[in-house]
């Protein structure tokens, strides 16, 4: 009997051990420190041929399957879909210039209020019908009436849109808006006739639902790709449009898939099985290291205009004291963050993302200096009572790496006597919390990207009082001087003068210190090296990439070699 029980115990222990070993997997190589923005060396091809090379299929993962209605979505996945399914009047090049797309040329009135665009005459929608000025007007009216997605970009500025003839569009603004051309990269032109033929009951009067139900599963675009199948909660599948007016590169993908889902185990399995060619940018460092070990998989890192901010609620004690804010800004070791915690990222020297036109580093910098931090704290009105205040730092649970920054603030803060509490917060709870001043955390860790390709976008988004109560600005600044500076810059038509004003705003913000610009995020992807990716190649060569969300993924310019 004793022998049988011992045997059973041994068997149980062996089974548990096997399960533990399976879960733990192989030993990981220790993290290699890399200088910021250094591109990992590309591997030599293994010589294997993958199914994607034969089929000319390109699959990329994202946080969710995209929302393909261009009047509704504004997230990363959706923007990636829009730039391929739809065309715009102009689009941003990798160098940051606005290049012709549907519009071949344009003129502006001296006061900047009237913009006239001449359209191409050879563009067809995916159903074969020609694209005319009427479709552009319809697209404007739709996005502005619905007021969702990127509608906010136009509602503040566009008064009327007219079509003097079938291939001319005249836009009149309510007030001068110098970066107007750049925001046109967010007006995706829809097929008016197709949408109108597929209206369902809705809240827009005679426009019913404005085609929302139809466009959630179908596209009405003229872009290089057309939706073949929209599998909700799964993926969007699109195929190359044979009658596209533009050019595809040789060996451009014939089928593209944007796959929703970022579970690490899932992504690693898909890439190992060569069922995914490009990973998303939301994986952990450890996951990227593992993916980099796969044969024929390379890594790319590019700065795409995303900055991690530690936003400080300037209305809540003790963050309402500029000296406390500066003390916290001085106590973070930024170089350590970008070398050990987030290798490949770049210290942020401005609240404006690196490379965004109008960016400047010529402003006061907060570098790691505990002595200065202590000096600043000593000057604050909370010098003797700082420990009595709970400073809650909220990090977004969907971005696990943010916890590292939160814990760093906590551990270093202890040296200064700060009582820091770390709070893991689901994204939607965070959005809810920051809608009100009293529930906004003392410090919020959030990545923010510019809406359009100029510093004014980020400055407005981050610091204008009209954006308080949004996740993009949790400082609750309400600074009239800053508002006036931003508004004045945005109506300054002369580019040099406008950029000078942007620089002055960045100086002002640095002095005010409402937030800590932690780092410029290096967007990382693991991808198979048979994929020719212009933005990845530019990043590897140290050249600029597009800072407008989605435009590094114009798949007609990719190649499957």
């Amino acid at each position, binding site marked *: 009997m004793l022998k049988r029980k011992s*045997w*059973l115990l041994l*068997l*149980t222990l062996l*089974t*548990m051990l096997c*399960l533990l070993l*399976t*879960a733990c*997997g192989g030993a990981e190589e220790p993290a290699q420190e890399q200088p910021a923005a250094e591109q990992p060396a590309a591997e030599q091809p293994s010589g294997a041929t993958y*199914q994607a090379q034969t*089929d000319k*299929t390109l*699959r990329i993962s994202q946080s969710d399957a995209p*929302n393909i*209605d261009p009047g*509704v979505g*504004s997230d990363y996945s959706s923007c990636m879909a829009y730039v391929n399914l739809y065309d715009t009047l102009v689009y941003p090049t990798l160098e940051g210039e606005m290049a012709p797309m549907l519009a071949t040329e344009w003129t502006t009135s001296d006061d900047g209020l009237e913009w006239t665009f001449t359209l191409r005459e050879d563009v067809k929608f995916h159903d074969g019908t020609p694209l005319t000025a009427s479709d552009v007007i319809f697209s404007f009216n739709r996005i502005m009436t*619905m*007021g*969702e*997605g990127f*509608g*906010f970009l136009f*509602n503040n500025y566009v008064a009327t849109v007219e079509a003097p003839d079938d291939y001319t569009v005249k836009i009149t603004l309510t007030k001068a808006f110098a970066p107007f051309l750049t925001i046109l990269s967010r007006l995706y032109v829809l097929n008016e006739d197709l949408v109108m033929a597929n209206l369902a009951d809705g*809240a827009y009067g005679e426009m019913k639902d404005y085609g*929302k*139900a139809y466009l*959630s*599963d179908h596209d009405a675009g003229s872009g290089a790709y057309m939706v073949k*199948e929209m*599998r*909700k*909660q*799964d993926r969007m599948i699109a195929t190359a449009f044979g009658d596209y007016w533009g050019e595809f590169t040789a060996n451009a993908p014939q*089928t593209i*898939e944007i*796959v*929703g*889902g970022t*579970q690490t*185990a*899932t992504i*690693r*399995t*898909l890439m*190992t*099985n060569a*069922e995914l060619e490009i990973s998303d940018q939301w994986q952990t460092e450890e996951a990227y290291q593992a993916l980099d070990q796969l044969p024929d998989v390379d890594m790319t890192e590019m700065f795409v205009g995303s900055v991690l901010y530690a936003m400080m609620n300037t209305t809540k004690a003790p963050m309402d004291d500029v000296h406390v804010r500066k003390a916290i800004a001085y106590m973070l070791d930024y170089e350590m963050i970008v070398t050990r915690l987030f290798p490949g990222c770049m210290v942020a020297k401005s609240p404006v993302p690196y490379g965004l036109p109008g960016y400047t580093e010529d402003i006061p910098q907060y570098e790691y200096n505990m002595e200065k931090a202590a000096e600043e704290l000593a000057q604050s009105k909370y010098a003797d009572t700082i420990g009595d205040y709970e400073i809650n730092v909220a990090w977004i649970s969907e971005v696990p790496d943010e916890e590292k920054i939160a814990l760093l603030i906590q551990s270093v803060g202890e040296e200064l006597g700060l009582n820091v509490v770390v709070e893991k917060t*689901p994204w*939607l*709870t965070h*959005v*809810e919390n920051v*809608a009100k001043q009293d529930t906004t955390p003392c410090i919020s860790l959030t990545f923010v990207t510019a809406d359009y390709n100029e510093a004014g976008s980020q400055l407005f988004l981050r610091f204008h009082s009209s*954006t308080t*109560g*949004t*996740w*993009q600005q949790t400082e609750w600044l309400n600074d009239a001087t800053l508002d006036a500076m931003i508004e004045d810059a945005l109506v300054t038509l002369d580019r040099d003068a406008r950029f000078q004003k942007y620089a002055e705003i960045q100086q002002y913000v640095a002095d005010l210190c409402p937030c800590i610009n932690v780092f410029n995020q290096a967007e990382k992807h693991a991808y198979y090296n048979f994929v020719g990716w212009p933005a990845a190649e530019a990043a590897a060569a140290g050249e600029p990439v597009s800072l407008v969300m989605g435009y590094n993924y114009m798949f007609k310019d990719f190649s499957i070699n």
Partner: protein
Amino acid sequence: MDLLKFILKRLAQAIFVLFGLSIVIFVISRIVPGDPARMALGSRASDEAYAALRAEMHLEEPLARQYGYWIKGVFTGDLGNSITTKRAVSIDLRDFLPATLELVMMSAVFMVIFSILLGKVAARYRDKWPDALIRVLSYSGVAIPAFVMAILLLLLFGYKWEVIPVIGRLSSGFAAPARVTGMYVLDGILSGQIATAWNAFLHLLVPALALAAGGLFQEARIIRTAMTDNLTKDYINASKGYGVPNRLIMRKYLLKPSMIPAVSVMGLDIAALMANAFLVETIFTWPGISRYGMTAMLSKDLNAISAVILIFGMIFVLVNIAVDLIVAWLDPRIRLGGD
């Protein structure tokens, strides 16, 4: 006639249960913090759009009236619009429910077949090594959460061995079959697209196994215990005395009464699979209603939350009725009203 009365009585009770459930979930979803209109439109939407959506969702009206609008919609088939998918909830249910039903049905098949098989083997070889091995597996299977099991199986079948496809419902290159039920395996067979049906079946195996594992091993233990207990009953000894073969005793005289306690638990486990499937669906990128429901809850998508919970409640009630009928069939004493 008695059976019909029994079914009608249970259905009548179910209506009250579902009514109560709808009130509870409706109220909870609306009092939990979070502005569904702002979450749907984003923080930069215009005030006009925000006001229009709130009006559309009747959010400015008293709770009781909101419930009235909603329950009226349920009876007319209008479940409102989802703020995450931007389309009618009824269309979402039409697309996602069959995916989960297909997954749950396969899990149920695994549960029934393997629990009976393992239970029989454990009872047949009780106190010997097969029984011990099955006991160890049972403890492990019950102790390991479904999502951990899912990741382990994903890594094993999809990463280490790469023997069958594990992500999504179909491999790239396969289009969904012509829709009849929304279940790809069945639709593929019905439309003659056998290759598609086979591919869909392969995709189904690992997620279904991950979902079934916990309940499967638990029921195997229950069957094993019940069979072991019944082995000592007089009627079994009498059967042996009459020379009835052991195999026949196990299959015909022992298994049926031993299934009764397991069937009750099995019914509850199968009904619970629908709700428990969300993590498995997330890991395997399975576009099912559980994952849809979880997204709806995280997005405070009120219409979707209410509809999903109602569906789960209906399924739970129907499965319980079915379990009662099966138990009555297994045990004549129950249907004849005996002791």
